[in-house]
């Protein structure tokens, strides 16, 4: 089972990610702010975390940096969710320790291929 945590305060984004990815082999958990994301990450030790840059309490960059300071998350893949126009956010996220970024509005195909690249042993959506 692949566990994915998404930290975003927009319910429609969380719903779309869950609708797109969740099935019998992928579990999607969510957090609506940075502190909740850190607590959820500690509790779930997810394989992949989507972090919105603009969380209501602490920024996604801060959450990413704090996760990277903890060796428990050494293998956890982190993807920053950034606004399309904010290229500086991309560089900032990568320097904070993120593996990838996904610009909003995001393509479901890009979302799926990104998850498959992170976890190639768990094909997204049933095949065959």
């Amino acid at each position, binding site marked *: 089972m692949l566990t994915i945590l998404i930290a975003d305060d927009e319910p429609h984004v969380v719903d779309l990610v869950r609708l797109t990815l969740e099935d019998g082999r992928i579990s999607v958990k969510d957090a609506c702010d940075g502190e909740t994301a850190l607590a959820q990450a500690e509790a779930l030790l997810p394989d992949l975390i989507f972090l919105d840059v603009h969380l209501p309490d602490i920024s996604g960059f801060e959450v990413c940096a704090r996760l990277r300071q903890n060796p428990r998350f050494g293998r956890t893949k982190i993807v920053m969710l950034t606004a399309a126009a904010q290229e500086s956010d991309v560089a900032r996220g990568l320097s904070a320790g993120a593996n990838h970024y996904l610009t*909003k509005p995001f393509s479901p195909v890009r979302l799926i291929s990104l998850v498959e690249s992170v976890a190639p042993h768990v094909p997204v959506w049933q095949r065959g």
Partner: protein
Amino acid sequence: MAARIAAGSGDELTVAYRRLNAAYQQTLRYAEDVRRLYQQVQRAIHQSLLGLANALEAKDAYTKGHSERVGAWSRGVAAALGLPAADVDMIGQAGLLHDIGKIGIPEAVLRKPGPLVDEEWTVMRNHPLIGAQIVAPFDFFAAGALMIRHHHERWDGSGYPDGLAGDEIPIGARIIAVADVYDALTSSRPYRAAMPHATVIARLGEASGRTLDENAVVAFVELIQSLSTARPDVGARPVHPAALRPPLR
């Protein structure tokens, strides 16, 4: 106080608008992908069916032109009968692949340069069943598989493999049967010349309501007489080397 409330409401409206707009833009992005993926799926379906038709052509070159004509004419008849667009597509595809089961027929029978004996006919008559089995893995093509299975049924119940009669026979199979008979009779065989278009049309009229569905015959005749692909010149056509075998009966 009133001014502060108004300012606060304005900010809230701005935030709400931004959130709504972001959600709207995100929805558009998903819709664009759905449309693109749907088109890709449709293309992949079409290409996979063409690939199957190519496989049959590699084994039996004669069937290429035959399959394509029967597919195109079946599609035209289905449209003329007012069937839904999805059914028209399916019938056209099933027409293209109606003989795909010949892949499973031994070459000694398929390419025999002369009339088949009874045992060979028994083998040849398996091709609708083999064809339906070949396309069985395609869930989207379940109706097409039935058309392939039943394209040699006859309106009066004297056909094969199941001896279905009348409306028991899928409409697509009844349409394909008419196009199949027309194309077989207007094609040359080693033991007989191609029949003229007018003669074959008369034959279809005789079979109408007996072995062939009357509605399908009427629609087919109207279609074929309106098309430049009608074949009044079939007598002049050269015999294809791979056509050295009798028509299916």
